């Protein structure tokens, strides 16, 4: 690798670090208030507009949602200042194991770990 290219790459890496630092300092992330039923249902309507929501469970940290829609589980969890949405069969999600106060949804693509807090799993709100 020639010297000029190496300098260019190192300079670019430094610029990346400085720009990310500036973005962190500026605190320009979208506001993401803790989820309540209303906010959760609004998010679910955006992500799953064709599903009828039977019941909504909100995680112990108010940053995740598991909703039941017939035999499907609709799952939302926080990533940065937004949410990731996935669906999976309800029976697989309900059968997920709990470790250290978190339920790990292995049946969901991305295998999120949702905080339970003082909540029970599987959610009583969505019992069959």
């Amino acid at each position, binding site marked *: 690798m020639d010297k000029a*290219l190496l300098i260019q*790459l190192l300079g*670019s*890496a430094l*610029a*990346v670090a400085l*720009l*990310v630092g*500036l*973005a*962190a300092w*500026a*605190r*320009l*992330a*979208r506001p993401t208030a803790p989820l309540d039923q209303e906010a959760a249902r609004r998010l679910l309507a*955006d992500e799953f*507009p*064709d599903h009828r929501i039977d019941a909504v469970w909100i995680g112990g940290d108010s940053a995740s949602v598991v909703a039941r829609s017939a035999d499907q589980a609709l799952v939302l969890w926080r*990533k*940065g*200042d*937004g949410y*990731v*949405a*996935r669906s999976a069969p309800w029976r697989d999600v309900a059968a997920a194991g709990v470790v250290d106060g978190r339920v790990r949804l292995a049946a969901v*693509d*991305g*295998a*999120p770990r949702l905080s339970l807090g003082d909540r029970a799993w599987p959610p009583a709100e969505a019992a069959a």
Partner: protein
Amino acid sequence: MKPAFDPVQMAIPFFVIAIVLEILLARFGKARANYEPRDAATSLMMGLGSTIAGLVTGGAVFAASLWVWEHRLFTIPMTAVWAWVVLFFAEDLTYYWFHRLSHERRFWWASHVNHHSSTHYNLTTALRQTWTGGVAGTWLLWLPLSLLGFPPAMVAIQKGISLVYQFWIHTEAVRRMPAWFEAVFNTPSHHRVHHARNARYLDANYAGILIIWDRVFGTFIPEDDAEPCRYGIVRNLPNFNLFTNVFHEWIGIGKDLAGSRSPREVLGYLFGPPGWSPDGSRETSHTLKARWRAREEGKGEANSTLPHP
């Protein structure tokens, strides 16, 4: 191997200054912009990685262009103004079809998807470039220009100019340009639609510099202020991992091919629209838009049956 005059290299300081300005203006409430530091870091690292990946495949791509140009149909002088004018339109039309192919066929989407995986729309998103474009072979689409007689360096410069133009349109800080500009050129408003994951906005506004191609080929959708753009891809990625961003769709193709049971399935998984599946159980842009239309029509019918006050 690149031409001595590389618009993208020359524009890098401008890119950095523009991002700094966007952040500062947003910080002090003078412009609209949202930044999530990990998202911005991913975008910028992808830009840096794309430059390195380009060094690996760039030589072969330029050599192929040179070989084709040596077998050219006409000799087009690089110094003629008319040649630059013709190339401007020809390259931009090529870009439109490259971009459309990159969205509507999975093999090329696998390379392009990482430009769309950010859930933010700011100037760093513009630098979230592919690492696998050389492998995906989309550069082949530009070879006819060299076959016609445009020197490869001239084509490379025009491609660079297009890329530099497309930097500034990745922003929420600019709401609308003057009407005449919006009618002819690709703008932040048009390109916000392109990066949106709302069903109504999918597969639209593929333009590079001129939005006229979308208007001609029926892929233009204007931004509707009543439905703000939600950015990202239909199934947003579960993490900020750089390598997940770069390779997730290629890995998905590999898994699907491993489970294929017929040549039809192989071809469908490779060259069908993103989301294609043999039994139609997955979602494509087409099915998502069809369901959105059905919902809209349902709303319309419901409204029309309401009693008048």
